[in-house]
């Protein structure tokens, strides 16, 4: 398509940019349209009617470091966390936020240190 793809001229670079961003937008625009189709096909607002309260105990996984950063902050963050979890659950459980009541946030994570100790012991006994 171009004279020499190992040595790109500036006009060529601009052309590539315009064309590529065009394709990127076109592609994602079509995905947008597909998803709007999803909405009309699958979502009729029915679920709004069944508003059962959901009690949730959040089980934190030990896998990422994300939570450690959260753990650094305290107290004031606790409320943010509740709100964020509520919002997240709302989406993932397909319920409006108002339906969700969080009773208790129990951190289950950080067992890792115990485990790795068990590992060490295992190795020695």
């Amino acid at each position, binding site marked *: 398509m171009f004279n020499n*793809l190992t040595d790109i001229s*500036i006009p060529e670079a601009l052309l590539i940019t315009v064309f590529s*961003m065009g394709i*990127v937008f076109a592609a994602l625009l079509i995905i947008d349209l597909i998803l709007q189709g999803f909405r009309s096909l699958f979502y009729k607002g029915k679920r709004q009617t069944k508003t059962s309260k959901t009690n949730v105990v959040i089980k934190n996984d030990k896998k990422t470091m994300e939570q450690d950063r959260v753990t650094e902050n305290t107290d004031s963050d606790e409320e943010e966390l509740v709100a964020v979890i509520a919002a997240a659950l709302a989406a993932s459980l397909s319920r409006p936020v108002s339906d969700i009541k969080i009773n208790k946030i129990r951190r289950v994570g950080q067992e890792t240190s115990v485990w790795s100790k068990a590992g060490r012991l295992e190795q020695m006994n």
Partner: protein
Amino acid sequence: MLFDILHKFWDSTGFKALLDSFFKVDNPIEILQSPLIMILVSFILLYLAIKKQFEPLLLVPIAFGMLLTNLPMAGLMDNDGLLHYLYMGTKLGIYPPIIFLGVGAMTDFGPLIANPKSVLLGAAAQFGIFFTFIGAVLISKMGIPGIGFTGQEAASIAIIGGADGPTALYLTSQLADHLLGPIAVAAYSYMALVPIIQPPIMRFFTTEEERKVKMEQLRPVSKTEKIIFPIVVATFCILLLPSAAPLVGMLMFGNLVRECGVVERLSNTIQNELTNIVTIFLGITVGATAKAEVFLQGQTIAIIVLGLLAFSVGTATGVLFGKIMHKATGGKVNPLIGAAGVSAVPMAARVVQKEGQKANPSNFLLMHAMGPNVAGVIGSAVAAGILLLFFS
């Protein structure tokens, strides 16, 4: 005779080679390419990864691979070296799509399905890629000695702007695998620095009023939609851009395994052991490409600078497109969520959440930002497909 052996032994050590890299050079400038400098660089990266928690899952293996490959005489990247064998999975473009399989199995596209318009913010943020591409071409034309990029190299550098590790590593492995080291370091470092890079840009381009905007509750998304989504998106994207197939195909296969609900045991293994094993091998072998003579070049500095540009421009265009949507929807969209379009999942979405709350403590933008965030992953895979189409 023992002295003779000792002499030969000394010649076989890395210590001697390291000393020679300082004292037995033809040209003093060669000292700047001593493996010792790379060993120190690897120590710094280990420090950042462990102490500062810069994307440690990849930077710890990358930095250790960098250390091992720069210990002279060890030959781990020679044709029969251990890391060279493991590197085949990187070079042949196998590991990054498998990581994408894991990413797909860990990603919830629900927020994107609930708010389709946010997909466009994931498109807008890809400007960072192509802006950087132009930048790399421009720099090459400036005639700075030792700094010049081929089209393939420029494309590989540009993809840093996708803010998506596996995509960057895949494209680079296919177009310019000698740059895997610096591009991986730049990409993962800037992803770790997203909470520092993005906020000033976000604040610069938005008004207080805009940042205060609360967005309305997302609609619920059914299981059926979540199952159909990966199938439809894979089919459409690969038909449009066949070169994106390894990335988009694996991403969406992983997501289907996650959402279909009938192969839980495959989903668990993909998300955990398979991803972990491949992460280790990918990381250490990517690091192992960063030998002193290829890493310690002016080009690497250019890549580091261009990478920062890529992240900044992507953030800016995302936010600017967010402002357009803000206007177009009569103020329903908070433009901050555009910044999440660069991907860097889920860090960028969390930054949006924090900035939104700073402006308005009752603001919860996280789920709204997850839409552009995961759209950005698709967006940069599409962009990678276009660049592969042009340059491979």
